[in-house]
């Protein structure tokens, strides 16, 4: 067990060092091709995180595009005080949250304009567009989507980073710019809200 953790830590350290090599290469060569290894390494993580936060596949695709575009153009501003992956997750979380809020505002304005009570449906398990359904339609996927929908953006973010992305408390704290204590407290609050929807699967 302890040996396994040491092994994980070593792999993590290697991945971090490799990230920095790729970053240097992009800064040196300044071409999209030099950026591709970083893109390939993180594209699914970024997309998945964006999808879990927004609950919308097309919105998640836009967020993923915007995140990599921003990271490519601002790589020179990455100051290496945090891991590259933490920086990337932070940008992703902010972009995804921003996308959800923008959509809420647009819907609010739309409702105000036409007087309709549009469906909120943020993390609704929409018919054929969710990644789960693309692979396998399951009751669990729907329950998870429903449970995530019940969480506020703050709680949803820590749940996604912890359980879907497997980040440690310290990494989540780095991503959201809060203390480890705040991360734990948000997770505890999230558990209470997740429990009713997921209890039968646990």
């Amino acid at each position: 067990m302890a040996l396994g953790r040491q092994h994980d830590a070593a792999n993590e350290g290697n991945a971090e060092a490799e990230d920095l090599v790729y970053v240097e290469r992009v800064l040196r060569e300044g071409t999209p091709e030099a950026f591709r290894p970083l893109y390939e390494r993180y594209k699914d993580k970024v997309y998945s995180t964006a999808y879990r936060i927004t609950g919308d596949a097309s919105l998640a695709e836009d967020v993923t595009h915007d995140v990599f575009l921003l990271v490519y153009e601002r790589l020179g501003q990455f100051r290496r005080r945090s891991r590259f992956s933490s920086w990337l997750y932070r940008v992703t979380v902010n972009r995804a949250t921003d996308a959800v809020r923008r959509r809420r505002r647009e819907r609010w304005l739309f409702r105000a304009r036409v007087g309709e009570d549009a469906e909120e449906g943020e993390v609704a398990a929409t018919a054929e567009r969710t990644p789960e359904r693309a692979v396998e339609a399951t009751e669990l996927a729907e329950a998870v989507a429903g449970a995530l929908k019940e969480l506020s953006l703050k709680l949803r973010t820590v749940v996604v980073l912890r359980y879907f992305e497997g980040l440690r408390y310290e990494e989540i704290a780095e991503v959201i710019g809060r203390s480890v204590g705040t991360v734990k407290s948000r997770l505890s609050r999230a558990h209470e809200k997740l429990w009713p929807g997921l209890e039968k699967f646990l």
Partner: protein
Amino acid sequence: MPVENEERERQETEKRLEGLLGGMIRGRAPDGLWDRLTESLGPEARAARESARWRQRLVGGLVAMAASVLVAAGGWYWFVVAGQVTGPAVGTVAPPVVTPAPSAVAAQVIPTAVALLDREGETLGQVHVVYEASNFLPGEMVLVTAGEGYDN
């Protein structure tokens, strides 16, 4: 419940959720995304974005000026101000930010946008500030919320 029991319960719930959710299939980024990205990284797309940023800065400045005039007149308004983060943070402003109206409005909106940075000073992109002034009179308070660079 004693603190140790709470902590133990939290850890047990975490393990069960890890088992349940950790095994779920991760969504895969769409295949055509790299092509879309390289297109966006091309010189024409970059020039178009840069031009759009300048337009946004201009519009943001004009809206801020208009806001101060309209706010002074009272009434009900929504203002959207887009500002580009251009330098290191001069201080973190955690929204919602309440600023006194109307004299401080023009002075506060753009600095708020600029100050809403990542705490480490690494810029995260454009900051959109939605500025709501609802039925207030000179001397009343104004609520400013931020779209990005917000307080997590």
